[in-house]
């Protein structure tokens, strides 16, 4: 099964929205730690846990034990997305007589462990895993632990035990967000090199960025074959995706003000990705270009496949992609500018592409339907691209709810060095309306001549994935270019959110939610500064 990158992205977004809704309704709860583990929860439910919401007690199921039980809203939201509970039930969080207790509780079907008293979830999971072994079941136990709760001595009692009993069926994700209730973990009780500690306890240790779906996914997969218990030390940001909550200890256990919820939901809907294209770099060293993208912190690597027929230029094909695949975990965003893509798309799946986009000009409805089925079956994201002169074809409408990505070309494909076509902005805005009408839930990708100068306008028009050509991969300092581009988009996002808040008469309060340098920056932006 492929990475299901966009599916997980959407699941995680939905879950984060539910966390906001639930904690705001409850008037208390823990959004910070729910957000820091959101990608882990989303990825596990989407791609790793074997479960059946209709039969939550199936003995053969895998278990998800939330040891850091205060992040219950994050668990419940993930469970709602996974189909265990209805979304509307999230509104009953912490309510008298409800199933969604303040901390996870067996009262709610699908919850495996009554968390809350910290530091006990791993021990409990050892019991689950030992029982599975005795019964000859191959079910796995995934545990999400907090770094704060690692202060508890029982964590280390359990760590020794799991190693002693060689419980390779246990995978722990350690949500290393570096904040606990009082303050930062390293001030309250320094954990130091926590990976080294687990290694010393005899565990298989994997270190990842816990917000990168491809890294979470790879770690979960790798843990299954280790034969020893695995801990995935996941670097995360508490409150991730909402700027005023991010890395702010104040948001450990505080619910958002219901008045602010619309602005926060808007912010959640404004997550974006950067996808540098390797052909804008050194074409003679594509492997080197992939590595540069990785080092620059790209979200995706954009692969422009040109066949010399559909477009005048030729770049590379699936063989080259298969060669590049082992170099990085970063999702490959393959843009097939080729004729007859239906016949050739499987080669690109086999080569390890995570998202495959074909051109509306190169297929018809039947061909695209076939491609879509194939990609969905393989867990690969499916995209459709339109040239500057092409509108959304009528045959595409029925497929739009299943399409993960729409590339709106802002230059003519197949020739390098073109400038961004200013008409693209209006087109994106126009398309947005049609996309909404036809149930499109994917991401709009802007491709062609994208740079810091047009970042704001294309973001404003609804683009959420940005292909970087000469402005990123073409630069010596690609990391700096990516960083600058992100900042340009973020500033536009900040402006848009302040406008959103102003529309509700909440601009001052919105700005004041941000602390320190974050607030200063908003004031600067509000004053018209760059």
């Amino acid at each position, binding site marked *: 099964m492929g990475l299901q990158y966009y599916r997980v992205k959407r699941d995680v977004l939905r879950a984060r929205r539910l966390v906001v809704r639930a904690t705001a309704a409850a008037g208390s709860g823990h959004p910070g730690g729910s957000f820091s583990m959101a990608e882990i929860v989303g990825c596990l439910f989407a791609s790793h846990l074997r479960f059946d919401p209709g039969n939550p007690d199936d003995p053969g199921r895998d278990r998800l034990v939330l040891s850091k039980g205060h992040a219950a809203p994050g668990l419940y939201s993930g469970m709602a997305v996974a189909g265990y509970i209805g979304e509307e039930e999230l509104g009953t969080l912490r309510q008298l007589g409800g199933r969604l207790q303040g901390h996870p509780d*067996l009262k709610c079907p699908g919850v495996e462990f009554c968390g809350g008293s910290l530091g*006990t979830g791993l021990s*409990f999971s050892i019991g689950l895993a030992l*029982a*599975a072994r*005795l*019964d000859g079941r191959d079910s796995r136990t995934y545990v999400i632990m907090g770094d704060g709760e690692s202060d508890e001595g*029982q964590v280390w009692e359990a760590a020794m035990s799991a190693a002693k009993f060689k419980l390779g069926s246990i995978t722990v994700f350690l949500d290393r967000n570096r904040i606990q209730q009082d303050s930062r973990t390293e001030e309250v009780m320094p954990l130091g090199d926590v990976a080294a500690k687990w290694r010393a306890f005899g565990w298989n240790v994997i270190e990842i960025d816990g917000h990168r779906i491809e890294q979470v996914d790879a770690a979960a997969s790798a843990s299954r074959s280790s034969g020893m218990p695995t801990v995935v030390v996941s670097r995360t940001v508490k409150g991730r995706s909402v700027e005023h909550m991010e890395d702010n200890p104040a948001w450990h256990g505080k619910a958002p003000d219901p008045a602010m919820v619309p602005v926060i939901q808007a912010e959640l809907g404004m997550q974006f990705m950067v996808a540098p294209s390797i052909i804008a770099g050194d074409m003679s060293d594509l492997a080197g270009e992939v590595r540069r993208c990785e080092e620059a912190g790209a979200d995706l690597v954009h692969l422009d496949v040109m066949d010399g027929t559909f477009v005048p230029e030729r770049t590379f094909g699936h063989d080259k992609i298969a060669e590049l695949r082992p170099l990085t975990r970063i999702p490959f965003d393959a843009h097939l500018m080729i004729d007859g893509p239906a016949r050739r798309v499987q080669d690109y799946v086999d080569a390890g592409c995570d998202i495959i986009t074909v051109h509306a000009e190169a297929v018809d409805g039947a061909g695209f339907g076939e491609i879509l089925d194939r990609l969905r079956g393989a867990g690969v994201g499916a995209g459709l691209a339109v040239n500057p002169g092409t509108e959304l074809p009528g045959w595409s409408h029925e497929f739009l709810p299943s399409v993960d990505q729409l590339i709106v070309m802002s230059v003519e494909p197949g020739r390098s060095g073109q400038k961004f076509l200013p008409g693209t902005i209006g087109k994106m805005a126009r398309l947005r309306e049609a996309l909404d009408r036809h149930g499109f839930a994917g991401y709009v990708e802007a491709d062609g001549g994208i740079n810091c100068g047009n970042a704001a306008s294309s973001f404003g028009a609804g683009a959420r994935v940005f292909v970087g050509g000469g402005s990123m991969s073409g630069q010596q300092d690609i990391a700096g270019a990516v960083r600058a581009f992100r900042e340009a988009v973020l500033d536009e996002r900040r402006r848009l959110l302040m406008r959103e808040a102003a529309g509700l008469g909440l601009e001052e309060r919105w700005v004041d939610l941000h602390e320190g340098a974050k607030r200063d920056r908003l004031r600067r932006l509000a004053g018209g500064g760059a």
Partner: protein
Amino acid sequence: MTAMTDMRTEYARTLVELGRSDPRIVVLGADTTDSLKTSSFGREFPGRLFNVGIAEANMVSVSAGLAAAGKTAFASTYAIFLPGRAVDQLRNNVAYPSRDGMPGLNVKIVSSHGGLSVGPDGGSHQQLEDVAIMRAIPNFRVLVPADSASVASLVRVMASEYGPFYMRMARSKTHVVHEEGADLRPGRAVTLRDGSDCTIAACGITVHMALEAARLLSERGVSCRVLDMFSVKPVDHAALERAARETGRIVTAEEHNVMGGMGSAVAESVSGSYPVPVSMIGARDAFGESARDSEIPALLEKHGITSVNIARAAGAAR
């Protein structure tokens, strides 16, 4: 002189016997599997005994996980550490989690070395608060058997009845009180001797003392009823109400703090049904201290726990 038998041996023997027909039974220990004799279970059923080392909290939570996955988990070590070192785990991992109206998880906590009769190891190891702790946790049933026949019967009960139990055993051999094959049921006190002037409710090693006290009193013409209150929770309200009505006075005896122990359970019960004076024999909010094996009776006496004192308290009923 009655025969003396060993509770721990009987505990392990019964577990092995039950383990043969019930594959769900698993046993956990914390570096005391030789002392508790549960190592014999591991020899008979390799793979079903888990020694977690000196880590009682971990042992309890691991037991809870095993139980959540369908096992009947017996976790054992010394009473000073269990419940002492693991109250949070007993409450939140074992007693609290309840699915579909099932009360708690199917974990049986069996401790040895309860009370002052632990002897030489001293006050740090003489658990006098465990019954109070465990009684206060919802879903837990609390048992303090008097002898090895009781242990055998109650281990069967725990293996067959769903839910959390706490059973406290003594370190030393204890007098035989019940016949072999005795059939004890939680919530049902056993009337070991009938009487009309006073009732002595006892549990654990004090049951034998109570019988001795009743014999002493009968020589003086006082008719004493003796109840084995091995089931501290649920307590036998009916038997206690009857005792209150029919004998007018109750003396309780236990090697436990009088605050929160079996005596408290008795007082709570009769105060709501048929209030009568309740005198409590037990440690009076105090700790123990070292006593060599031959000195254990003297240590108990220092805390007032003797058949003579029980008799004195019961005799004062007249």
